[in-house]
Each structure stands twice: as C-alpha cells, then as structure tokens.
C-alpha cells in the first residue's frame, strides 16, 4: 500500500515558500492575465459609454449614452432581441437534447457518421447560409416556394425567410449544433447505475429521463442554454440579412447603425447598449448559479461503467429519420447550394454554359488568401490550445477548489462573451492601441491572439466546468493519495476524463477564431491578415462564389478535425 510522500526537505525554503505563496501567487497571476484580457478592453468601453467622445478626444463625462437606451427604437430592439433569442434557444436546446440522446444513448443506426454531420452547420460562415436560405426561401422566386407552387398549382407562398421566423431559423442552424456539441458528451459520460436505481425504484422511463438523466445534465444544459442565449442576443448576420429588409431591429443592428451609419459615429450610445446587454446577461448568470447551487452532478466516478444504450426496436428508424431530416435541412440544402454554386459562374444560376472551375482556380492562385490561411491556422492552433489551457485552469479553480477569489475569476472569464462582438472589437482597438509603444502588441499577431483568447475563454471555461462537474472528487483524491502532484493529477486524471470536452472546446474555439471578424478587422495590419478579412474582401469585391469555395475548404477542415477528435474519444471511452 502506498502512502502520500512527504516533501523532500532538501528543496527546503523555496518549495515551502512556493507552497505557502504558490496559491495566492497563481490566483494573482490569473487575475492579472484575465484582467488584461477582459477587464482592460471593457474598462475602455465603459469609459467610452460615459464620456461624450471616445478615448483620446477631448470631451465631457455624461450619461447621454445610457439615456439614449430609453429611446423607443432601442427598447423595441432590445425586446425583439430577447424574444428572438429566447425562442431560438428554446427550440435549439430541445432539438439538440433530442439528437444528443439519440446519438449517445440509443441504438440508432449510423450514429458515428450522423454525429459528425449534425454538427457541420456550425462551421459554415453565416453569410453563406444566409445567402443560401435567401435563395431557398424568398417569397418571390425562392426554390421552396417555386416547388410549393408547382405541387399545389397555385401561387401561394409556403415560407418567407424575411421574417422573425426566418431570423430564428437561420440562428438555429448554429445554435443547435453548438448546443449538441456541448451536451452529447455529457450524455455519454453517465454512470447508468443512477438510472438503473431510478427504474428499480419504480420510475417510468419518462420520469427517469427527466428526474435523473436530464437533472444530472443541468450544469451542461444550462451552460449551453445561457451561452447560446447570449450568442443569440448578439447575433448579427441573421438579423441584418433577414430582419433589416422588413424593419425588424435588434440590439446588434442598432449598435451597427450607431457606429457605421452616422456621419459622426455615436460610440457613447453604442458602448452603453453593449453594457446594458452585459448587465442583462449577468442577471441570467446569477439565475443559473442559483439553480445549480448546492447540488451534485457527479456522474463519472471511480467505478467502471458503460452508459446504457436504449434499444428502440423499430422506433430507431424514426430517430434515424429525425437526424437525417435535420442534416438535410440544415446541411445538405445550404451546403449543396454552396457546392453547386462553386462550380457555376454565378451563385444560384445553374445553366450548363456557366459551369466553371474559375472560382477554385481563383482561390488557389490567391496569394493573399493563402498567407491569411497560414496566419489563421497559426492563430487558431496556438489560440485554441492556449485558451483551453487557460480555461481548464480557471474552470478547475472555480469548480473544484475553495480558493478565495475563484468567483471573481469565474466572472472575469464570462465577461467577453456577454459583450456584443462589434463593441468588444472596438474595446480591443482602444485598449491595445493606447498601450505603451514598447509593448509589441498593437500591429502584431499578438493583438489578434490575445483578442481571440479573450473571446474564447468563456467557451473553454463553460465546456470544462460542465465536464468537471460530472467527475467525482474521489478519483482526484485517489490520485493525490498515490503520490501524484497537482499537475500530474490534472493532466492524467481530470484532463484525461474530461478529454472529450477539451476536444470539443478546442474545435469550437478554433473555428470561432477562423470566423471572427469584428475584432480582426480593427486589429489586423497588412502582414497579419486573417481569413475572415480576406473573405470579407472577396465578398465585397463581388466574388461570393470564391467565398463559397473557402467555406467548403473550412468544412473539409472541420470534417478532418472532427474525425480525428472522435477517434481519440473512441480510444478513451469504449462505449460507442
């Protein structure tokens, strides 16, 4: 039997000092790092919201920005935003949970492939799916409506994508796979003994699902709900594409107007709106905390287990159909459109005499694109890895220790997610440009890397927190008792068990970096151009087909990454 090994006395004072000051030192460093990444840009924005002019210009302090929030236009926009986000998050959550259960806990055929296919829509640039859906669902000549008219022989309209429904639907393309990615591994990593105990005590399958399975997943599902709801509040492309033409205003389109649609941009009102939404989200977070307080969500214990797979019999073909249906609607249709359009001269014009490989040649020969691709890959790999490490540490401290300051760290890590992207981008610009010149951040890749890390940390923390919440303490304690230090326990026990979550978080952050535009366009310099900026140039330069080709390249990358990721998971959890 082994016992804990005492500290070697030779290491003496230094190590004793470290073990006494190590903890406050690490907390201090973390707070400093997080503070720089999140509080500093937000502080600049706060200044902007209470000052009549942006940083660097003479002006005065006043509350005009916050008073502007009370204008009927803005209040209406806020109400629209909350409603749209609530509806789409609710629908997406239901759909995602259903599909996660189907993939992780039933014997539906083709689960492995379906799992990858279901998550694809998340990785397609929104501007492409918006264009595709605009072509499919416009009331004049949309493909779906034309088909409907042909079937019914009339001239009615089945769907009009330029509506509240259209905005919600487009947003669901992203939130459903996003939430799915969050919850599917939580479903997998569940000790069935709890469910068995429930069934043996007389509960029906339905009761067991709600009161045991679903209840145990609350940290993950509520985190996913909140992350997705907040993202929905900040969605821009869906609203600008499908809402603006029919006068539906949301928070981000109002902010966009304030910044870009005035001869004199109104940063004060824009940043004030950003903070108003941040406060609202903060309230949500508090509610989540209340909901989860004091409850245990441990499902992964030291005992070996294999989650039960429900045998559905003939019903498994229905579940199969649901997943395939989702895939067809959200992936096959728009991606099919992209694929098709990439081979024709013009998006949406499928005439044989317009078949061409020009767009592929154009992207292949575009030096600027490949340089940007290289920059983005570098920033993506380094950024996602660094962010997951940072997030993993923060999540550990906030969920598995009783260290003072852990709540502060958790809050700091949330902040960037709650501020609309285009406002946060300005915060980074103001923040980094005004740093002392000897700090080589502004005008270099570091500016982009730090901004991406700030933007990705909330996802990293949420994903790993949810996973940690499921792992019992006894496993960790067992490791320490056997002589492993904190680092070894962290890596070989926690990370190994939470590996699926780490992998998912990494992929989410990597692709978030690929698509991030708001901060990138304000921080890039010609040498540090990234893919999202080049795609904007292609789009504005009248080459949406080239953007489709890039979108397809990104999809191919996604498929590759997800395949690699799932193979790693299979090696570690042999239940698939």
């Amino acid at each position, binding site marked *: 039997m082994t016992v804990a090994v005492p500290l070697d006395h030779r290491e003496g004072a230094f190590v004793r000092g470290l073990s006494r000051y190590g903890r406050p030192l690490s907390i201090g460093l973390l707070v400093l790092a997080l503070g720089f990444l999140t509080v500093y840009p937000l502080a600049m924005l706060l200044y902007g919201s209470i000052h009549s002019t942006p940083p660097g210009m003479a002006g005065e302090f006043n509350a005009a920005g916050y008073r502007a929030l009370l204008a009927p236009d803005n209040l209406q926009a806020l109400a629209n935003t909350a409603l749209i986000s609530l509806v789409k998050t609710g629908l997406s959550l239901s759909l995602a949970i259903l599909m996660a259960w189907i993939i992780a806990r039933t014997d539906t055929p083709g689960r492995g492939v379906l799992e990858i296919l279901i998550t694809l829509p998340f990785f397609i640039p929104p501007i492409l799916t918006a264009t595709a859906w605009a072509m499919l669902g416009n009331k004049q000549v949309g493909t779906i409506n034309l088909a409907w008219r042909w079937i019914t022989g009339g001239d009615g309209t089945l769907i009009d994508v330029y509506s509240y429904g259209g905005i919600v639907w487009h947003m669901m393309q992203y939130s459903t796979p996003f939430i799915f990615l969050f919850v599917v591994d939580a479903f997998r990593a569940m000790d069935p003994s709890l469910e068995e105990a429930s069934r043996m005590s007389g509960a029906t399958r339905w009761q067991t699902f709600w009161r045991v399975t679903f209840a145990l997943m609350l940290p993950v599902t509520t985190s996913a709900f909140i992350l997705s709801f907040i993202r929905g509040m900040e969605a821009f492309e869906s609203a600008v594409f499908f809402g603006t*033409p029919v*006068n539906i205003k949301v928070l981000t389109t109002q902010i966009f107007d304030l910044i870009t649609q*005035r*001869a004199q*941009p109104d940063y004060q009102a824009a940043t004030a709106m950003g903070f108003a939404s941040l406060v609202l989200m903060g309230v949500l977070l508090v509610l989540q905390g209340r909901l989860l307080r004091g409850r245990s969500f441990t499902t992964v214990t030291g005992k070996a287990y294999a989650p039960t797979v429900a045998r559905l019999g003939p019903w498994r073909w229905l579940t199969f159909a649901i997943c395939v249906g989702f895939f067809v609607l959200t992936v096959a249709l728009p991606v099919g459109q992209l694929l098709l359009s990439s081979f024709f001269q013009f998006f949406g*014009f499928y005439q044989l005499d317009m078949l061409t490989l020009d767009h592929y040649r154009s992207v292949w020969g575009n030096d600027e694109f490949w340089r940007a691709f290289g920059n983005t890959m570098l920033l993506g790999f380094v950024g996602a890895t660094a962010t997951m490490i940072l997030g993993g540490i923060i999540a550990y401290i906030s969920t598995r220790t009783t260290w003072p300051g852990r709540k502060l760290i958790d809050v700091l890590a949330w902040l960037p997610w709650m501020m609309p992207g285009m406002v946060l981008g300005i915060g980074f610009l103001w923040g980094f*440009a005004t740093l002392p010149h000897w700090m080589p951040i502004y005008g270099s890749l570091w500016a982009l890397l730090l901004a991406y890390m700030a933007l990705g940390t909330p996802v990293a923390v949420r994903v790993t927190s949810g996973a940690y919440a499921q792992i019992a303490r006894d496993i960790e304690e067992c490791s320490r008792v056997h002589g492993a230090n904190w680092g070894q326990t962290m890596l070989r026990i926690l990370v190994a068990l939470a590996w699926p979550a780490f992998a998912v978080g990494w992929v989410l952050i990597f692709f978030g970096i690929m698509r991030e535009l708001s901060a990138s366009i304000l921080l890039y310099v*010609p040498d540090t151009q990234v893919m999202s900026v080049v795609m904007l140039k292609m789009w504005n*330069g*009248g080459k949406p087909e080239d953007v489709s080709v890039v979108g397809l390249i990104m999809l191919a990358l996604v498929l590759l990454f997800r395949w690699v990721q799932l193979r790693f998971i299979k090696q570690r959890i042999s239940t698939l």
Partner: protein
Amino acid sequence: MRRRRLLGLLAAAPAIARSAAAQDADWNKVVDAAKKEGKVSIYTATVGSPFHKKVFDAFESKYGIKVDRLEARASEIRERVRVEQAAGRFLGDIHHNGSTTTWLMTRDGNFQPHGTLPNYKNIDTTYEPDDTKIPAEVISYCVLVNKNLVKANDEPKSWKDLLDPKWTGKILSDDYRALGGGAVFFPVMLKAFGREFHEKLAQQKPVFSRDIQNSERRCARGEFPIYIPFSLQDYNNLKGLPVKPVVPAEGRPYVRFDLAMLKNAPHPNAARVFMNFYLEPESQLVFGNAGYAPVVKGVVEKTLPEIRDLLATKPMGTTDPPKQDEMLALAKEIYK
C-alpha cells in the same frame, strides 16, 4: 503691341523654362527620396476592389515602392486612424475614403498638406483638389434592371418613372436611412425633385437591404425587377447575368473618393509620388474602364465603348457632408 508682347514672351521664356526645369528637378528629388523610403502604407475604404489592386500593383512595378494596403470599411478606417494618432502611433501614409468621411477627418485634423503635385494639371475641373485632399475616383449611381422582367420600353427613362404604380412593391433598394449609396441617392433626389418625390417613392414600398452584393444578385435572379441605386462599377461582377444598368435622363448621382496624406506620415515622399501616380491618365483609365468616373481630363473618351456611353451621361449631384446627418434623419422620417 503684338511685337512687344512677343518680345516680352521671348524674354520670359528662359525664366519659364528654368522654372519648369527646376520643378522637374524638385520632383525628381521627391521620387528619389520616395524610392529610398521603399514603402507606402495606404488605409483604404475600398474593400476587395481588384481595380484598385491593379493600380497599386502598377505603382509598385513602376517605382519599386511596396504598397501596404489596409482595407476596412469607412468607419473602421476612420476609427483606426483616430485612435492610432491619438496614441501617437503614426503607421499610415495615405487615407483613401469617401468624401464625407474625408471631410470629417479633415475637420478633426487627421491629415497634413501634401504639397503640389505635377499631375494637378490633369484634374477635371469638376473635382477640385485642395491642400489636404485630391480627388481619387468617383462612384456613379444608376438603376439596375432585370432584362427578363423589364422590357426595353418599360425601362425607367427618368428617375421619376420609379413612381409609376407598376413598380409598387417591386423596387429593391439600398437603405436611404444608412450611409452608402442610399445616402447619396436621397439628398440628390431631394434637391432635384423635392420632398414630394420621396413621399411618393415611400408609397411605392421599396424593400430596403444593406447587403449590396446580395441585392444585385437578387435582382439578377428575378426576385425584384429593379434595384436602386446601383453602383456602376459593380457591373463588372454581373457580366453574363440578365441585368443591365440604366442611367435616367437627369443623370447619375455620384460620390467622390479622396486621397489624403495622414498626419506625420512615416513615408511622406512615397505618399506624394503615389498620389501623383493616381492622377496619371493610365491609372484613371483602369478606373474608367471599371465603371468609376475618372477625375482626370480626357480619360472618359478612351474607355471601353460599353462603359463610355454610361459614363458620358450627366453627373447629377452629390452629398453635402455637413448636412449628412440631417439628411439621414429626414430619410428616417419619410421612409418609416
């Protein structure tokens, strides 16, 4: 009398010739200094334009001076310049943006005088340069019609034809309540036809969209027969589609893009040589053939035939920067 004038001219000739030679020598010094600087950095609000890239590449080939392009949208460029200068970071040499943003930034002191340029003499008198800015190129706006849905004799011959009830609910438009083509269209039509024009146009229930590229394609796909205001240079992206640009009889509203030297530019000589190069007829011909109205004399006549007829129409008027916000507010009032 005539002999005296002639003698006077003959006497002055050497002085004039020396002065011209001196100017040439001065300019050559600027060019040499520019080549030593080796680089020029331009902050431009034309995102993704292959024509601008062509002109920048031609400059690089001619002078061996590298052009670093920072492309972003108008307000992003403006905020970056403002913040950088406020923080004492002087990274950009040249600013290239629409006239309203340039006017605002002149007022805010973001530019410095660029001195005389030899090619000033090329500039069309319609577009006056001043100490801190020169005209770069001009974007013209007209009507885009779908050829399958709009027969030739139904095409709008006057801007007022848009008020015809047959186009009710069928006009896709850039938003007049936002900056961009719509914000040029609105004041120009207001000045030409009065508020009544806009009130009647509002009753036509135009569908507003902010995504210009997509709007043009939507017209091409037959979702809407008409799209206004159409930026003429975008026609390059639509060749082969069943659409055509139509310039009504009253002419084309336009907006000027300007070049200005940024304050404390790190490569001031390269910047001056670049600005001068922009005003060469060859450079302006690239823009002309693309559908921008050139700012230099004698270029329209050399453009490709299909574009020449469209460019040879009347310029109808442009925005007045100090009144921009007032116009946006009026547009919001009329087009709820």
